[in-house]
């Protein structure tokens, strides 16, 4: 099952990935998402693809996209580092897909367009990423009562045979996934740190092998947690789901808040619900004032399934112009 990476994916890894093989990073800084977007546009306009960077003179390909050819050249010269990193991931059952691959989750491309991460690393059944489901988000530090509440939501999702999508962090994230998985359901964890540690966690092993859990992250498998990453990955959680429930949130700050507001104001991928039994929770009330709906507390699998059906009354997605895949339709 050793997959061979396409030349396009190899090129995108060389350009944008830190390729952490050892604990130390060295050399040129990989291209940022913004820089890569410029390059990708330039390539697309010239009807070229990233793999062409591996053998054609750089100057022609880079053109006017304001990237230093020396820097791009030394990023592309990391061939050995790339192959070492890929081998390290494959040994750990970690896969990587790029936007140029047919296996890249369509939901990300459709909903995020050019902002879809150029690379995704993951472990477990990639097919789950296409199934949709219920996203559950909330804080890391919560009391036992909310943990119980969230686990029940997870269990209900499992009973409704819908995937649970969350961020794999402590607190609400893990409670929701735990609830779903313990009840025999499926779950996707969109991680803010690299997937390597979670992929090797003995508690996840069976679930990953049985195709019930998928872990995914846009960050290098060895990357450590960082707040910026945590914020960025919120939109990926929403993008994988058909509806989202905010269990709790701090007011005006923190990842949960920012992610929810971004959905309500800007991205509008999915209907956003908030928990209502916490009367007087000012953050959730504020989100409702911004357009979040009250969670109707579905009690049966049937009710939850209906809630997750495509909702025509939801506000139209902010960006309807469906980006074609980056380098033409997947080949």
């Amino acid at each position, binding site marked *: *099952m*050793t997959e*061979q*990476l396409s*030349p396009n994916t*190899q*090129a995108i890894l*060389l350009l944008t990935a830190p390729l952490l*093989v*050892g*604990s*130390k*990073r*060295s*050399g040129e800084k990989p291209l940022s998402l913004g820089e890569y977007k410029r390059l990708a546009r330039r390539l697309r306009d010239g009807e070229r693809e990233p793999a062409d960077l*591996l*053998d054609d003179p750089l100057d022609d390909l880079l053109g006017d996209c304001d990237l230093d050819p020396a820097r791009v050249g*030394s990023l*592309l*010269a*990391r*061939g*050995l*580092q*790339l*192959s*070492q990193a*890929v*081998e390290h991931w*494959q*040994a*750990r*059952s970690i896969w990587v897909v790029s936007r140029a691959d047919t296996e890249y989750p369509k939901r990300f491309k459709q909903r995020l367009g050019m902002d879809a991460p150029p690379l995704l690393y993951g*472990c*477990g059944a990639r097919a789950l990423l296409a199934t949709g489901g219920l996203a559950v988000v909330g804080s890391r530090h919560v009391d036992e009562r909310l943990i119980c509440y969230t686990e029940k939501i997870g269990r209900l999702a499992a009973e409704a045979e819908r995937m649970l999508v969350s961020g794999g962090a402590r607190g609400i994230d893990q409670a929701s996934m735990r609830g779903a998985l313990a009840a025999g359901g499926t779950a996707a964890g969109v991680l803010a740190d690299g997937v390597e540690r979670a*992929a*090797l*966690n*003995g*508690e*996840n*092993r069976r679930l*990953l*092998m049985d195709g019930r859990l998928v872990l995914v992250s846009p960050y290098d498998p060895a990357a450590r947690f960082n707040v910026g990453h945590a914020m960025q990955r919120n939109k990926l959680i929403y993008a994988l789901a058909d509806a989202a429930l905010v269990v709790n949130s701090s007011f005006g700050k923190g990842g949960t808040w920012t992610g929810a507001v971004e959905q309500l104001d800007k991205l509008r991928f999915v209907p956003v619900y908030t928990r209502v039994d916490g009367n007087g929770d000012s953050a959730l009330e504020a989100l409702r004032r911004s357009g979040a709906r009250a969670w109707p507390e579905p009690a049966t699998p049937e009710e939850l399934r209906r809630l997750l059906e495509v909702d025509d009354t939801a506000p139209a997605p902010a960006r309807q112009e469906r980006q074609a895949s980056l380098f033409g339709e997947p080949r």
Partner: protein
Amino acid sequence: MSYDPRRALDLLRKGTGLSDARFRDGQEEAIRHVVEGQGRLLLVQRTGWGKSFVYFIATRLLRDQGKGPALLISPLLSLMRNQIAAAERMGVRAFTINSSNIEQWEGVEEELKQDEIDILLISPERLTNERFRDRALTAVGGRVALLVIDEAHCISDWGHDFRPNYRLIERIVRNAPKNLRLLATTATANKRVQKDLRQALGPSLTVQRGDLHRPSLVLQTIRLTTQAERLAWLAEHVAALPGNGIVYVLTKRDAVQVADWLCLHGLEAHAYSSDTVQREELEQALLANEIKVLVATPALGMGFDKPDLAFVIHYQAPGSVVTYYQQVGRAGRALDAAHGVLLSGEEETEITGYFIDSAFPSREEVERVVEALETHPDGLTQPQILAEVNISHQRLKRTLKLLSLESPALVVKQGSKWQLTAADLGEAFWERAERLTRLRREEQRQMQEYVSLESGHMEFLISALDGDPGRVEGPSLPPLPTQADPERVREAEAFLKRTSLPVEPRKQWPPGGLPIYKVKGNIAEERRAQPGKALCVWGDAGWGGLVRRGKYSVGLFADELVAACADLVQQWSPDPVPTWVTCIPSRRHPDLVPDFAQRLANRLGLPFAAVLVRCEDRPEQKKMANSTRQALNLDGALQIEGELPPGPVFLIDDMIDSRWTMTVAAWLIRSKTSDEVWPLALALTGPGR
């Protein structure tokens, strides 16, 4: 990149030190291919053809044009020292990082960072080494312009010399983008191996292949059943051979024994194995013709290049024709004639068979390891696994290595701990293990076919390697005699029985200690055994057979063994001299060892006292597969009964395996006395013996 032929020739002349040197057939084409980036290249050329000139000159030319350094992966770097000197003459700064020069790593890492190294030479093992990955490779991995895989046939699991670490190299090559230049080299690759390499290195691979014939070699096979006969043959004929050479043996112990024997007969002979400390000095001494013969295990291997090596003699037949061709092919590269003599004997099939059978773990061993890791989701260190699973240290190491080199791997090492991945071990692993085992058996059989040849030896080897045997010319030297002198055979028999083996005392309790005896950590010096002795190795050509018969057929150790031990004691003369004898008790064979110890005591004129007793039955030590388990099996099993006679003591046992029995017994005896305890056993056993 453009290729500069004048600069290339100039470099060749600098490297060889010959102002009129010319490229050999194919060398220049290969250099041009690499420098111009025409795609991946596989060079199949015999050792000594000059593959190193290809990669050193290509490296220099690439560096001239501002490219990054080259990385060379080779299993036997120790043999590259001469080549590194040639590289330096060409202005190629070459360094190696290996386990023997750790003190230089930091400097090399720094120079890599400063881009002051042109080619870094590493062993395949380095690639899995964490510190190397973290530091050196991070410094260089981002810039390597040319990757050279030496002995590339090791990639193929149809190769005679498949090495687990090369599975990693294969995948690294598979995953490498096409802008990384790649040169693979080997001296031997039959069609099947070439097909595998094409698969691993990509369909666009170019193969350049040289001629396999070695016209200067006079090949000969002689069957001499016993080791004594072969020792006698060597003593008689090696001294008479002109020049210097190598005697290949299969085991480390044979290397030492054969070298000792040849020294006794006035030859400058030295043993060479992976245990040898001064390997480099010995290689240099052989190169400089300062020693007549190196008695070497296959550790003296690929790449050792002495053009005027006059003979290669095998003390036993190796496991495959390719191995044999490579080893014998070291002789006579620059001579008109050289001897390649294969002595074949009774024990070789058992030894090569042992290597074949122990190459892969059993399904049960893998299951046990997985079970242990499943119950510890955070992972286990290797010593922790040994305490949980009854599997030998060597086998566990090998099992973990093989499992971690699968992709996806079943286990991976994260820091110091082994963890399971989210993958199962595929059936393909077992299929490969079975296929390789069958292949090895077939190679072993083919080698015996070679041993039986009356003529046409070179044609046989070339055909076996899928070469063209059409142009083979006849030998230019008369063959050597095929008999051994009976008088010398008797002498060799006596020699084989004269040896004794050191038994080093253990200085530390096992990881976790022994809870019943309440000990852990270091064993106090005043409670340790003294350095002991054993008469032979279980089943060896000297006393081994007699010990085995005594233990399992007769139930009594023969008087010859008593006499042999008494002789051993006399030669050994431990100081302070023991004044009494005791022995290790057994419930399974209550009389065997005490009877022997009593007779030995009589012979030595010392009193015998059975002061050690077994408190309870335990499984036999030999059923405990690793040292930690063997130590735990003894915990609380022995105790002292009665008064100890005064003075130092001989502690007798029939067999020593893990040394724990002797360690615990000595520790108990020395709880009652400050006098020394000298272990003495009939045979050493244990894994691999």
